[in-house]
């Protein structure tokens, strides 16, 4: 398993920033961030995703009524918004990025079963219940590892294959950190943005 600097400088001391993960079964050109970008920016992927969930999730009134095209566009816009925001923060100063990550990522609870966000006292900047979610672990002060992103149209991660896959990625990452001797239970937190 390798850690790929995304919004980070590996020469920083102490280590800080936002890293992606290259799992052992990924090619040398892949990592969790590149796969996330490839999926979210692919209209074929988004359309297929929304079509598969259309009858259950896009027309039941919870989100209002969405056509597949408009649902796909909403996911694209959310993806562009969040990646722009992270990139802008990092380009100003890494401290801005870390502040943003600290504010916006919320701890996940009970990822072994149904997961629910801890209620945060801070007001979220993004609209309530954004569809595009980022998953990461915080392994030490100011050091985030991105395990993957998904479109989440359900309340609990166990309720949809896409978010179940992200749960598995979090587990893979945790196991990988343990193997490397990098798992510190006190510092380790699983997060969702």
């Amino acid at each position, binding site marked *: 398993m390798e850690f790929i600097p995304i919004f980070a400088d590996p020469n920083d001391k102490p280590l800080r920033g936002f890293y992606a993960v290259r799992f052992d079964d990924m090619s040398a050109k892949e990592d969790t961030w590149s796969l996330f970008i490839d999926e979210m920016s692919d209209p074929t992927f988004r359309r297929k995703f929304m079509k598969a969930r259309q009858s259950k999730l896009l027309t039941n009134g919870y989100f209002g009524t969405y056509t597949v095209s408009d649902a796909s566009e909403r996911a694209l*816009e959310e993806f562009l918004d969040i990646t722009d925001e992270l990139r802008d923060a990092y380009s100003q100063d890494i401290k801005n990025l870390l502040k943003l990550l600290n504010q916006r990522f919320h701890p996940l609870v009970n990822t072994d079963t149904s997961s629910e966000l801890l209620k945060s006292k801070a007001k979220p900047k993004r609209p309530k219940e954004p569809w595009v979610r980022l998953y990461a672990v915080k392994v030490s002060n100011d050091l985030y590892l991105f395990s993957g992103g998904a479109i989440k149209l359900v309340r609990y991660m166990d309720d949809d294959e896409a978010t179940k896959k992200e749960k598995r990625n979090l587990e893979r990452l945790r196991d990988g950190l343990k193997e490397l001797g990098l798992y510190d239970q006190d510092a380790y937190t699983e997060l969702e943005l």
Partner: protein
Amino acid sequence: MKKDKKKFEEIFRANIGENTSQWDTRPAAMRDDRSAFRRSQRVADRILEFLDENKDWNQKRLAEALGVSTQYVSKFLKGRENFTLNTIEQIERVLNINLLAENQIQVVVPKTIQSIPVYLTDKRMGDNNIIYNSTVHVMLHSNEHDQLFYTGQTNFCELLLDSTKNNTKQAFCG
């Protein structure tokens, strides 16, 4: 604790890999010409919608009709192709659809708003003068004139705003 932190950093640094995925150029490219990127995405989506609705068409048939490879069709359906007008016209001719049709609703809002979710009602006069309502949830995006507009193929004659985001001063259908 200090020793553990030092050891942690040593192990972590030893496992830092090279960023070879070119992720940093792709979002930048998406950003440098965001309008063109969005246009590519929308055109790709409309073609995909057509292929979904017309089962006698597929990517292979489209490639043959356009005289291009299936790999090229696959590439532009991933929304990464900056379509030329000629290509768009050719696809429109082959599929007999309009890829760039825009139904604009102009909404005047503060400059700081880049996009806003709204509910749009599509009212059509049906048989026996019955009005059919179809409400959809769409995103309005800002253009270079700081106006919010929607590009889509639904015909609307009324704009209903999401009550939590009502900053509109004026709205009309175009």
